[in-house]
Each structure stands twice: as C-alpha cells, then as structure tokens.
C-alpha cells in the first residue's frame, strides 16, 4: 500500500513537470509575437498601402526630371519603402492575417483620431485621399501631366505631406504595441521620415 502511494506521487510529479514544461515552452513561443493585436495588424496592412503610394510618386518623378538630387532622393525612397513594405507583408504572412483590410483604413487608430487636435488632422489629410498624408487621384495625375520643374516641386510638397501622415501612423502603433520588431521599425519610420521632411523643406526653398 505504501509503495503504491509512493509510485502514484511520482507519476503526479512527473505529470506536473511535463505540463509545466509545455506551458513554459508555449509561453516562450508567444513572446516572439505570434498573436498580434489589432493595432499591429492594422498598422502592417495600412502602412504597406501608404508606402506603396510613396514608391509610385517616386517612380513618377524619376520619369519626369533629370535633376539628379531629386532622382537620387526618389531612388532612396523607392528602395527603402519597398523593402519595408516587404517586412510588414512578411509579418502578416507569418501572423496568418490578410495583406489588406476590408474595413476602413486606420480604424485601429480611431481613438487617437477622435482625441486629436483638428488642426493636426487636417494638416496631412486631404479630402478624397484614401489615408492621412496620401495624395488624391487628381494630385497623382497632376504629377504626371505638369512639366519637369513643376513636377519636382509638387513631388516635394506631396511627399512632405505623405511623410507627415506616415509619422503620425507610426507613432500610433508605437503607443499600442509591445512587439519589439514592430515598434523598432515604426521608430525608424518616425525618425527617418522626419529627417526627410526637413531635407525636403530645404530642397523646396530652391523653387
């Protein structure tokens, strides 16, 4: 009888250890961000669309102008933002989430939008644009149709606004995410695009 109890205790301990290990390992896996929150998913989906337009604008201005400074800057944006798009789409792939949202864009930032100063909102949002900072169809058409000098100036103006919207969105996910991979990329977007806004403002003084 005594022996019987001892043996059962051993089995219980063993079972406990196994269950403990399984829970521990499951927790370890989850730390790497296997289950994203709504803001992280929304950011990856919306920012990839946002980046795509910056890439398109950069290609358009490179077609229009021979100005090497503008062309170099546009080349930089094309490569950087295309690669960052790939990173974000890669997250969505690993998270088994759709690449695009069927809902309204930037819904995951709704709280911030509601409490945000109106002036701040209107600064980068254009009625008719898909998302804050983005250019409208009419503005994109103008970029194609104006002459080279006008296109350079319009590109800078549109891209400044585009980056302002991008910075705002990146700040939005930094406030709502604990995933280091997501917040690290978002922080580089805030700092990098802000530096580019300063650079573009300086370039604009030539026009």
């Amino acid at each position, binding site marked *: 009888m005594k022996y019987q109890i001892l043996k059962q205790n051993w089995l219980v301990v063993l079972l406990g250890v196994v269950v403990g290990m399984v829970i521990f390992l499951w927790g370890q896996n989850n730390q790497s961000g296997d289950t994203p929150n709504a803001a992280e998913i929304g950011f990856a989906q919306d920012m990839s669309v946002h980046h795509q337009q910056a890439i398109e604008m950069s290609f358009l201005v490179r077609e229009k102008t021979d100005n090497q400074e503008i062309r170099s800057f546009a*080349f930089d944006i094309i490569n*950087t933002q295309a690669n*960052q798009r790939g990173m974000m789409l890669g997250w969505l792939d690993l998270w088994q989430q759709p690449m695009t949202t069927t809902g309204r864009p930037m819904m995951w930032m709704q709280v911030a939008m509601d409490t945000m100063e109106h002036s701040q909102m209107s600064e980068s949002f254009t009625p008719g644009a898909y998302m804050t900072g983005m250019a409208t169809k009419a503005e994109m058409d103008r970029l194609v149709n104006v002459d080279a000098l006008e296109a350079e100036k319009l590109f800078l103006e549109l891209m400044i606004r585009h980056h302002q919207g991008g910075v705002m969105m990146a700040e939005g996910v930094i406030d709502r995410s604990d995933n280091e991979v997501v917040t690290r990329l978002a922080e*580089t977007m805030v*700092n990098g695009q802000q530096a580019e806004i300063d650079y573009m403002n300086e370039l604009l003084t030539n026009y």
Partner: protein
Amino acid sequence: MKPIVIFAGLAIVLIVGGSWWSNTSKQKDFEQEIVGITSTIVTDRSHVQTEVEYKDTPPVGGNHHPVWLSCNGDIYDEPVVEENAVHSLEHGAVWITYQPELAAEQIETLKGKVKGYSFMSPYPEQESPIMLTAWGVQLPLDAADDERVDQFLTKFRQGPQTPEPGATCNAIPGGMQ
C-alpha cells in the same frame, strides 16, 4: 520502472535540452557580445552638402551627404569621402577601414570578407590597424584573422541599430553628383 515513466523522462530531457540548444544557437548569431566594441547613440542624421566635423575616426554616424557610397561589397583602394560613407552606414552597411601600411596579406584577407551591405577603404588617420564601423558601433582590431571580424559582420550588416531598415546599398543610377 514502467516503460511509460522512462519514456516521459526521456521526453522531458529532449524538450528541455532541445529548447536550451535552440536558444543558445540563436544567440550565437545575433545576440553575441563582441569584446571591445564601443557604442554611441547618434542623433544627428540630416542631409547636408557641407563638410561635417565628426568626432570619431572613422565616423560612426551623424549628418551626411544626400548621396551614399555604393556599399554592396565595394572595395575602394583610396580613402573615401566621409560624408558619403556615413550615409552608407545609415543604410545598414559595415565599413571596414585599415591603415595603409597594413601588411598586404592582411588587406587581402579583409577584402575576402567584403560582401553585401559592407564596403572597405584605407583610412590613414585611424589609430588602430583595422577598424570595423557600423552606425553607432565601432571595433578596433589588430589582425584580419580575428574571429570578431565575422562576428561583427554577422551582427551589424543591416543590424538592429540601423536607422533606415530596408535602405539600399546599390549605387544611385546616374552616378554621383
């Protein structure tokens, strides 16, 4: 002992051992501490067309020229313009520099290490025979066969401290201004 107990015990050993092994092997590549590295937090990163006064030799970051130096495994036999090189660091490149009097076979060994997201040039003013530099980090070395060369390249080519993840090391089409 019953077979199930042995089996369960074995399973635990495999799970624990396996997870420990996979964690440490991951660390080997990415989180390894490299002895001798100095880190600096760089905040200036504007595009400027003027000469920049850098406080490190070679510079580890700061304001830079709008045009970056091609850093796709490029080997430069003459000193390069710092303001262009710093822009390449911003794009995630590792810059290998050496004193020109470094032995020829050492220079050859280093050249063999220069692949994507890295570039190499002589730097006469530096204090150490060899310097490895990425944005915000630097490592002085005496010999090209030091194992820390590979460790540094593994960790810092497009490393986590890169200010512009995804930026290219390809040359700008149309060349320099």
